[in-house]
């Protein structure tokens, strides 16, 4: 079975849970920006949680199916339509051979996950089917989808289990002003006491440049660094450091003006000082933020971060039980 890409959407790519283990070599973890929703989509169609799906951002693709199958769309509220007829998000639905899947305008969130029974059967690259476009690695020919692509679909393991839907309480949703929890990092001391405070006071807005590599925020007050003589090997700007490793979720603030939270396709190191790191439990939410969306950063300690991770894992357990 295969799926024909009639229209690719804005930036639609094959993603799974990612490619951990190579970041020290400069190869990012990639995978879905909102892995909670990605897992939910797979569970709905009877796939392994980590099967390859399509991640589509802001504007959905148009896809034509050559066999009857089961599909689910989760994540952003991007209403699916089968031959022009509306279908529910966060629910499995049937598509017959020859029918087309299209999408209405985005209602909320940013990234939708389209799971197809059997998963997208592109070859594994370093253990993952995730697309890393900057490195032309994985996914469908290492790039975003284009019109005319034929996506191979794996063998479906499930027989239809009746109508399956995820309860509202277990769906990913984006508040009108989101809170992103942050653990201060190794370079925290490089910021003035006033800037440390004001970073968490200001309401920031997602910059239109935000993408899979990093989410840039703007409209907060500029931050100041402690005076020092720049050490050997560091750039001349006060936001520069001697090159260091960049963790997933780390927040760099080049020139002290616009914080960038590194995400799934990030570079693994460089010379910008990092204020802290967004906790793992809140990274999925970032993937659902539209340009200009308001967000506040909230300071937490490591114990709170681990507790939040525990709660997120509990929620994942509830998701699995719900299906």
């Amino acid at each position, binding site marked *: 079975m295969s799926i024909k890409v009639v229209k690719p959407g*804005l*930036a639609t790519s094959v993603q799974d849970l990612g490619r951990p283990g190579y970041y020290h070599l400069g190869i990012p973890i990639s995978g879905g920006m909102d892995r909670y929703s990605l897992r939910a989509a797979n569970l709905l169609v009877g796939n392994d949680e980590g099967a390859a799906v399509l991640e589509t*951002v*802001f*504007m959905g693709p148009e896809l034509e199916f050559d066999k009857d199958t089961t599909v689910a769309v989760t994540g952003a509220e991007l209403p699916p339509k089968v031959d022009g007829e509306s279908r529910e998000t966060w629910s499995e639905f049937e598509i017959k051979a020859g029918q087309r899947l299209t999408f209405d*305008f*985005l*209602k909320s969130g*940013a990234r939708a996950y389209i799971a197809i029974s059997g998963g997208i059967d592109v070859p594994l690259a370093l253990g993952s089917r995730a697309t890393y476009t900057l490195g032309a690695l994985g996914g469908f020919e290492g790039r975003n989808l284009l019109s005319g692509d034929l996506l191979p679909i794996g063998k479906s393991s499930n027989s239809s289990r009746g109508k399956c839907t995820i309860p509202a309480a277990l769906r990913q949703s984006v508040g009108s002003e989101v809170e992103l929890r942050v653990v201060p990092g190794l370079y925290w001391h490089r910021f003035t006491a006033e800037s440390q405070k004001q970073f968490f006071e200001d309401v920031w807005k997602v910059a*239109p*440049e*935000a*993408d899979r590599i990093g989410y840039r925020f703007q409209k907060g007050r500029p931050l100041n660094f402690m005076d020092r003589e720049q050490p050997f090997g560091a750039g001349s700007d006060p936001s520069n450091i001697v090159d260091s490793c960049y963790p997933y979720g780390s927040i760099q603030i080049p020139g002290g003006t616009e914080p960038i939270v590194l995400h799934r396709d990030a570079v693994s190191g460089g010379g910008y000082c990092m204020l802290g790191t967004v906790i793992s439990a809140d990274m999925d939410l970032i993937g659902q933020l*539209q*340009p*200009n969306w308001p967000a506040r950063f909230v300071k937490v300690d490591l114990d709170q971060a681990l507790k939040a991770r525990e709660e997120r894992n509990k929620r994942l357990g509830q998701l699995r039980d719900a299906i």
Partner: protein
Amino acid sequence: MSDNTIQSPLPGTFYRKSAPDQPPYKEVGDTVSVGDTIGLIEVMKSFHEIQADKAGTIAAFLVANEDAVTAGQSIVELKM
């Protein structure tokens, strides 16, 4: 309300010109055919043309140049 408007399929920043030194794609009073470009949306470091999905005459721009827009927001009102 969407009957006589052209909507942006994307969230981002709206531009009425292809470049700062170029004239706007369309002005109020211009006729529009299906497929005509009426503006650009900038998002994720790239620009995407908004094309008319219906024909008519431009009655008004509902969004100013360089304004932020959301997906599904009406950009142009047409006289049909």
